[in-house]
C-alpha cells in the first residue's frame, strides 16, 4: 500500500512539474549540459583543449574552430565543452558536500534543541556574519588556488546557510502531529530523524540544493575572475571568462561562448529549482 502511495506522490509531483513550461525547458537544458560533461571525451578529444598553435591565435569562429581560438591558439569549442566538467563538478560537489554537512548539523540542532542547538547555532552565526565570498577569498588565499581548495572554500562558506535552513525546516516538521505520534509509540530518535523528519523536510532542501548548484558555479567563476580560483590551463568556465576579459575588444567571442554556457547552466538549475518549488510545495497544490 505504502509503495503505491509513494509512486502516486512522485507522479503527482511530476504532473505538476510538467505543467510548468519554463521548468521543463530548464530540465532539458540541464540534461543536455550534464550529457555534454559526461560525453566530453567523445565530442572532442582532450588533446585539443591544451594543444597550442601560435599561428592560429585569436581566430574568430570558423568551420575548423566553431567557437574560435584563444590567445594560445587553442580551440575554444574543446575548452568550453571540457570546461563543463569542471564547472558542473564544482557546482554539484560543493552543493552536495554543503548539504551533507548542513543536514547533519542542522538536523541535530533542530531536533535535539537545547545545548546542541545553541552550540551549533552560535558557530553558524559566526560563519554567517562573514559574507560568503569573503570567507571563500580568505580560504583560497590561505590554501592556494586549485580545484580542491576552491571546492573546500566554496563549501565552507555555504555550509552555515544550509545548517540554518535545515534546522528551521526540521524544527517546523518536528512540531507536526505525526512526529509527536511517532515519539509517543517509542520510535528511536535516529529513526525519527531519518525516517520521518528528514523525508518530510525534503521539499525546501531539494529546491535549495538545486538552486545552490547554480550559485556555486557562479561563485567559482567570480573567484576565478579576481584571480583567486582555478588557474589556467584548466578550462573552467570562470577561468575562460577571466582570460577572455583581456581580449574583450579584439576577440569578443572569447567572452561570449563561455558566458553563454555559464548562464545556460546556472539558469537551467535555477529553472528546475523554481519548478520544483511549486511542484513540491503541498500548500500550492491545486
Amino acid at each position: 500500500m505504502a509503495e503505491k502511495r509513494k509512486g502516486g506522490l512522485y507522479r503527482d509531483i511530476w504532473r505538476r512539474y510538467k505543467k510548468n513550461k519554463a521548468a521543463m525547458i530548464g530540465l532539458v537544458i540541464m540534461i543536455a549540459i550534464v550529457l555534454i560533461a559526461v560525453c566530453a571525451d567523445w565530442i572532442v578529444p582532450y588533446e585539443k583543449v591544451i594543444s597550442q598553435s601560435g599561428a592560429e591565435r585569436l581566430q574568430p569562429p570558423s568551420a575548423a574552430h566553431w567557437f574560435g581560438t584563444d590567445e594560445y591558439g587553442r580551440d575554444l569549442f574543446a575548452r568550453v565543452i571540457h570546461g563543463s566538467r569542471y564547472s558542473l563538478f564544482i557546482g554539484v560537489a560543493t552543493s552536495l558536500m554543503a548539504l551533507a554537512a548542513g543536514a547533519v548539523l542542522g538536523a541535530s540542532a533542530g531536533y535535539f534543541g537545547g545545548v546542541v542547538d545553541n552550540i551549533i547555532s552560535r558557530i553558524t552565526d559566526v560563519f554567517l556574519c562573514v559574507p560568503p565570498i569573503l570567507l571563500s577569498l580568505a580560504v583560497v588565499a590561505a590554501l592556494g588556488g586549485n580545484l580542491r581548495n576552491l571546492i573546500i572554500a566554496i563549501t565552507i562558506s555555504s555550509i552555515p546557510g544550509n545548517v540554518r535552513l535545515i534546522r528551521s525546516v526540521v524544527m517546523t516538521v518536528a512540531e507536526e502531529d505525526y512526529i509527536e505520534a511517532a515519539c509517543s509509540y517509542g520510535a528511536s530518535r535516529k529513526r525519527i530523524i531519518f525516517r520521518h523528519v528528514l523525508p518530510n523536510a525534503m521539499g525546501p532542501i531539494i529546491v535549495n540544493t538545486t538552486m545552490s548548484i547554480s550559485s556555486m558555479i557562479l561563485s567559482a567563476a567570480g573567484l576565478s575572475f579576481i584571480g583567486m580560483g582555478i588557474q589556467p590551463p584548466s578550462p573552467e568556465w570562470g577561468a575562460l571568462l577571466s582570460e577572455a576579459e583581456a581580449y574583450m575588444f579584439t576577440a569578443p567571442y572569447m567572452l561570449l561562448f563561455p558566458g553563454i554556457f555559464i548562464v545556460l547552466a546556472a539558469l537551467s538549475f535555477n529553472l528546475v529549482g523554481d519548478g520544483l518549488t511549486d511542484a513540491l510545495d503541498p500548500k500550492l497544490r491545486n
Partner: protein
Amino acid sequence: MQRKRKYEGFPAKITALCLALGLACSVSGCGENYIDRAMDEKSLVIAVEADVDTLHPSDYSTTVESNILEQIYDPLLAVSSDGLGDPEPRIAESYEVSEDGMTYTFHIRHGVLFHDGTPVTAEDVVFSLEMYQESEYQGSQVDGLDYAEATDEYTVVCHMSYPYSPFLTGIGRVHIASKDYWEESPEKFSTDPVGSGPYQYAGRNKGSSITLEAFEDYYRGEAEIQTVEFEVIPDQTTKSIAIQTGEVNFTSIESSSILALKGSDRIDIEEVATSGFTYVCMNLEKEPFTDERVRQAVNYAIDRENLVNVCYDGEAEVNSNICSKSRFGYSDDQKQYDYDPERAEELLAEAGIETPYDLGTMLVAEKYSNIATVVQNDLKEVGLEVDIEVKEFNAYLDDLTQGNYTITALNLTLEGDTQMCSMALTTDYIGTANNARYSDPEIDALFQQAGQTNDTKEREALYNEIFSKVQEEAVYGVICNPYLLYAHNSELSCGEIPFEGFYQIYDFSWEA
C-alpha cells in the same frame, strides 16, 4: 494602522526618488560632462592600478608610489637607469668624484625651494641620504655610502665605505626631503609630502584618487600641465575602456589591450624598454640541470618569437641575455640563443639524456602560468616533459628562494645599474634573487671588481666578460624583455619616456 500606511508609502516614495534621480541626470546632462572633464588643456588624468599606501620619500615599495613621488620630489641628479648618458644636474648644480672613488662632492643649486617655501640646503640633502641609509625599503639606492656631511650650506660630501661605481645611478633616485618639515610634523611627512619637485601634493581620496598641482616656484620653471589627477583603476579592462572614453588621458596598460587601442586614432601607444626579463629558471643544484648541455638544450628549445607573440602580444624584445639590450654592458658579441630544436636534441643526446625524459614538475606562480604553458609545449617538442604546478605567489616565492623546485618560469626586474645583475648571479644572493643557485668564484670576483672601478671602459670590459661567460654556460634561459606600455590621448605629447618607465609629467604637454 500606522504600520499599514508605511507599507503603502515606502515603495512609492523610493520609486519616485529613483525616477527623479534618473530625470535629474538626463536633464542636467551630467552624463556628458564627465567625459569632457578630463579634456581641459591644463589638466591631466592618469590611471594607476593601485592606491598608494604611503607617500614617504624613502619608505615606499610599489611602482605607483614611485611614479607619484617622482613628480613631487627632485633628486640631486637626473641619471638615466640604463647606465648610458651623462647625469643631468637637478638640485646639485655640479659634482666631483675623487680619483679613488671614495668621496663624492655635490654642489647644491642656490634658490631651490621646497613646496612650503623654505630653501633646499645641504642639511636637507644629508638628512635625506641618511634617511635612505636607514630605510628598509630603498636602502639599496645608497649602497656603499659610509656617511654624508654638509661642509657648508650648499656643499655635501659623501664618504664611501668602498669604491662603488653604481653610486651615482642610485643618487639619481634619492628624493631630497625637507629636514625641518620632518622635525615639525613626522606624521604628515609620509601622508602630505613636501618636496622640491615640479608638482606639489594637493590632496587625495583614499582608495580612489590623488591630486597634484604644479609648483609655481619650481626652479626649472613652472610645469605646463597645472593639475594632475591619479585615478585608481585596478581592473585592466576598465582601465582600457576609460582611456577610450577619454575619462583617462594617460595610463600604463597590458599588452592584451594593445590590439584594440591601436585601432583607435585618438590613442597613441608608447613602448618603453625595461630591465625586467622573463626567463626560465633551472635549479643548478638539481639533476639534470647540473649539466651545462641540458641548460643549453632548454635555451635552444624555446621558440622565443612565438612566446613573445602569445604571452606578450608581440610587445617584448626577444633576448636570451640576462642583460637587456639597452643597458650598459650589453654587447651583441655575448652569445644569443636562437630557436633550434634540432641543436637542442643533439645537446640532450650528448648529455646522455634519453628522450622522452620526464623533468618532473614545473613550479609556477599564477601570474606566470601563461609563460609556463608555452614553455611546456616547446620542451615537449624536444622530448622534455613537464607537469605544471601553479602556486599562490607568496608560497611560490618561498619555494623559489629556498631552491625547492627543479624548473620554473617567471619575470624579474633588477632595476638600477647593470651591477644589480649580480643579484641573480653571485653567491651572496643565493636564497634571495639568485634563483638558479649559481655559484662561481670567478663571476663573484668579476662583479666585485666591476663595482669598484669608476673607469667606464674598464667596467664595460668586465661586464662583457661576465655576460659572455654566463651566456656560454646558459645559467638562465632568458626569453625576452617585455616593454612597458603606456597608452595616452594622441593630443598629449609625452616627450621621450625614459628607460624603466620613470615618466616625468613635467615633460608632458597638450598639443594645441
